[in-house]
């Protein structure tokens, strides 16, 4: 487990994060929040690049002020888009492994495998300066996973990647997660975060505002009734039935009179009721889907539009 206990970080008088209590287990955990919300601060605290002003952090039984032990278990793909001057992709990874203590032969093997994993074997001989943004992102990712750490921290790992590379990287994350690793990542691409994350931590102004899987977080937001869009052959009949339900806050017919828009504070009850109506009235249902139970909606409700 990765555990934050009452962690605060101040940059002088500026708040980085405040009173963070968080336990992260295996799988993909995404940190989501607008710029300056404290995501990177949290990640940098986890790997000891920053020291907490107060509180303690524990990563698999190790504290971040023990880099010589911690980084055998942890790999960090930072957001800093800078590299040592004149270095090639291969040297970038191999030198990292040699500095980590691997003998040259092992370092070469690990370098090759990391390059394969991020599809950069061909470009590895070239200087990193000549790489595109996406390639630079992938070479950093290769470095973070090269020594097969248990915990991988990825700050905006999808930035700059084209859709193809993004799909490959997401597949890699899923594979690593399936192998039992801890993946902690931050991203602005909410629908992709939503798709791949086991757990989402929403951060705003240095505070955690929500934490859990997307559906769990959404179901707890009772002040925001769930919106459901139903397309069927007789929406007026459905609307009449729907108004008999106490949990319904709003029901609105579509302009084309082929759909119904429903807001409910108890989605589970509504779905049971809906199934019953469909069977009793023999409704022809074209589609039914919740409009705002994804991460994007949660983000809008809890944080607002500033970072999305």
């Amino acid at each position, binding site marked *: 487990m990765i555990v934050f206990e009452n962690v605060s970080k101040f*940059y002088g008088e500026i708040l980085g994060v405040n009173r963070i209590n968080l336990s992260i287990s295996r799988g993909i955990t995404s940190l989501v929040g607008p710029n300056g919300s404290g995501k990177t601060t949290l990640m*940098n605290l986890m*790997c*000891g*690049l*920053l*020291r907490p002003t107060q509180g303690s952090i524990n990563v698999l039984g190790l504290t971040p*002020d023990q*880099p*010589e*032990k*911690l*980084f*055998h*278990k942890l*790999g*960090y793909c*930072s957001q*800093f888009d*800078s*590299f*040592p*001057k*004149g270095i090639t992709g291969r040297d970038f990874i191999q*030198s*990292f492994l*040699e*500095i*980590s*203590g*691997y*003998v040259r032969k*092992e370092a070469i093997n*690990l370098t090759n*495998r990391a390059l*394969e*994993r*991020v*599809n950069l074997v061909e470009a590895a001989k070239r200087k990193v300066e000549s790489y595109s943004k996406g390639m630079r992102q992938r070479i950093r990712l290769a*470095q973070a996973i090269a*020594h*097969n750490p248990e915990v991988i921290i990825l700050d905006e790992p999808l930035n700059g990647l084209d859709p193809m590379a993004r799909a*490959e990287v997401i*597949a*890699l994350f899923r*594979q*690593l997660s399936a*192998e039992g690793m801890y993946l902690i990542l931050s991203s602005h691409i909410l629908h992709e975060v939503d798709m791949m994350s086991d757990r989402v931590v929403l951060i705003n102004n240095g505070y955690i505002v929500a934490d859990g899987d997307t559906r769990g977080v959404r179901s707890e937001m009772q002040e925001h009734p769930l919106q459901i869009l139903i397309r069927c052959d007789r929406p007026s009949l459905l609307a009449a039935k729907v108004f008999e339900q106490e949990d319904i806050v709003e029901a609105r017919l579509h302009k084309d009179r082929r759909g119904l828009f429903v807001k409910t504070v108890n989605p589970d009850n509504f779905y049971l009721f809906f199934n019953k109506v469909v069977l009793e009235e023999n409704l022809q249902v074209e589609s039914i889907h919740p409009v705002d139970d994804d991460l994007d909606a949660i983000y809008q409700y809890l944080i607002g539009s500033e970072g999305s």
Partner: protein
Amino acid sequence: MSSRVEIYSAEQVKGKMPLALWWRQFQAIFRSEIKKIFLSRKSIMLYIFALNPSLLFIMLNIFNDKKKLIDAQFLNRVFSEVYEGLILRVVIFFGCSWIFINLFRAEINEKSLHYYFLTPVRREVLVVAKYFSGLFTASLLFSITTLFCLFLIYLPRGYESSMQYIFDGPGLNHILSYWGISVLGCVGYGSMFLLLGVFFRNPILPATFLYCWELISFLLPPLLKKLTIIHYLQSLTPIKLSEGPYAIVAEPVSAWVAVPSLFLLTAVVLTVACLKVRKMEISYSNE
């Protein structure tokens, strides 16, 4: 993308003696730093700077009176003055400042120091390895400067006369002394500049202060002289020069005191640098 590899786990590396691991890490950092220092474009300026005194001696050979150029006493005096005034106080001092300050500061400015901090290496090993890479570079470069200048000063005497002076006279002692002082200069100044690069965002001001402090050492009372590096280095020079009418004369320290004192100073300074780097945070936006 390939499947997950079962790799050399951390335990395999950790299972070995930590000293062996540290040594491997030291070597890897050392190699990487040497490449950075020697092969960077900026280093060309350093090479030119290190060559400067040699140009002076070439000019001396070309334009000076030939009779004087075979007078050993005259040449020793000239060399001693140029060595103390130019090689030691300017070339070695500023060369070391460039090399050692940049060991950490350049990486902070280029936002690449975090790559070292994200490896499982003790930060003390990092400091020591960086220091020794700087020391190797500086010692090599300024040893070449010193020895090449000595070669140039012996050149007009001719081969036989020079060999006789070196092996049957005081020549060898002079060569070894000046070479040793150059290396010790790099040892002492190097550690100080590494510390400045670690502690200060803009190390130019403290480096200037250090330069002035070293420059006025001849005016300082004997007790304060002991707090300058130049005092120990000057004590080792084979030919003692007058420091002028206003100088406060102090007894030079023996080599047995001067050399260990410089090593002790270096050890203390490096320890402080290690403690600082151990606690160092990476927050480039604040730099």
